């Protein structure tokens, strides 16, 4: 340790650099500007962010935009619309009908939380809300499938309509699973990817079954 004994910062070595983290310095200005801007701008910015994420889900590329700026507006809208569309099913006996609104809501949110916890416990590096965001947004294809199913059921409920509904739901289920896997798979440890993907598969399978089993009164 002889060399260390006489280390000292001599006056002729200039110490340079920035200690402060530059991120914080800009936000006060941004806060002031969002207070001053018209309300329409604020709303449109959020709507555009949500819309951009919808587009990302429909054409999944490995972009990090969905992960970086997470928001839960999209999942909320999708979950509420899906739960609303699953209402009005056969309710001749309360015990045997389709899922109630609260049940759909709880299944989607509780299921997403459990899957996120599962992936984090297995050693995933994604954050909690980012994962919720991705799983919620990837319900979009299934919501589209539900819409299509209700329209097809308006036309009739025979065998042909069932086959059409089956094909549509299966296709959208595949799309949902592939989209969410494309976003989430990279953040998992490589030898546990299947362990993380399987619960996502189960989650969308359950939602697809609820959509397919929907029969109007």
């Amino acid at each position: 340790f002889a060399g260390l004994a006489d280390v000292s910062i001599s006056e002729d070595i200039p110490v340079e650099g920035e200690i402060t983290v530059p991120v914080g310095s800009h936000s006060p200005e941004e806060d002031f500007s969002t207070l001053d801007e018209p309300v329409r701008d604020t709303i449109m910015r959020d709507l555009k962010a949500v819309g951009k994420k919808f587009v990302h889900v429909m054409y999944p590329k490995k972009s990090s935009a969905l992960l970086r700026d997470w928001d839960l507006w999209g999942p909320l809208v999708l979950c509420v619309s899906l739960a609303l569309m699953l209402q009005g099913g056969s309710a001749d006996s309360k015990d045997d009908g389709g899922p109630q609104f609260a049940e759909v809501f709880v299944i989607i949110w509780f299921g997403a939380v459990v899957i996120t916890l599962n992936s984090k416990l297995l050693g995933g590096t994604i954050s909690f809300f980012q994962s919720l965001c991705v799983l919620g947004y990837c319900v979009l294809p299934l919501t589209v499938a539900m819409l299509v199913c209700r329209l097809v059921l308006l036309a009739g409920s025979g065998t042909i309509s069932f086959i059409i509904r089956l094909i549509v739901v299966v296709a959208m289920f595949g799309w949902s699973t592939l989209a969410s896997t494309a976003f989430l798979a990279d953040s998992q440890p490589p030898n546990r990817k299947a362990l993380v993907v399987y619960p996502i598969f189960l989650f969308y399978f359950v939602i697809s079954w609820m959509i397919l089993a929907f029969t109007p009164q």
Partner: protein
Amino acid sequence: MATVDDLKFEEFDDAANLLAANPDATTISIDEPVEIPKNQHSRRQEPGREEDDELLGTFHSDKTELLAGQKKSAPFWTFEYYQTFFDVDTYQVLDRIKGSVFPVPGKNFVRLYIRSNPDLYGPFWICATLVFAIAVSGNLSNFLIHLGKPTYHYVPEFRKVSIAATTIFAYAWLVPLALWGFLMWRNSKVMNIVSYSFLEIVCVYGYSLFIYIPTAILWIIPEKVVRWVLLMFSLCISGSVLVMTFWPAVRDDNRRIALATVGTVVLLHALLSVGCLAYFFDAPELDFPAPIIPITPAHNGTT
């Protein structure tokens, strides 16, 4: 008597400088404890584990006991504590599932596959899959059985999902708890060589339920004989996994208590499967009368 000079603190040179001065001196190097050899140990062991386990038996389990003791050191309110229960890779989960579906007589599931690394991933997701498999298959089979009958209107029967979930999760977690408590109590009276931790018992029960997933899907076939054959087959397989696990733990005990314990384990397992079959799947032979238009007095009057 040491002089003051002798007691003066001596600065030691850097190890490299000292060694350069005196190349023949013996050296000791202390490395940081490395995490990797433990994982390598368990991974290297996996391919040849059947032979090793047979021969080494207790020695190997002692070693893994010691290593396992190093793992779960985080306090139970931290996230890392629960991460230790998910420390499995895909191939390990698949191996455990394979071991529960193809039980080898004489090989203990816990010693062979779990090896002091019980995981909660398998039991939880197998139970969840089983819940939905039973609910969906039951719904589908009822739909197919009653298809074509004019009085039948398809209902999704969503309530049954919550009933199935309650039943299966209660079975997979409360029965191991009761069994573990019972084994601990017997252990205090009779010194058993083999004893299991609570999580190992949960693990065995969870993985033993896996065979019921394909069974539930095959129960869609609306033939009573087929269903009962499937039930017997899966009961034998998962029952044998449980019996081979728990027999060594009670074998040293009083003969009657040992038999009663193992018998209760199998009985509860049978009750679960028969109950699921009876409740979620309508009996196919309970045929409703074919759609004949009932003879009304008006019809009789016209002949």
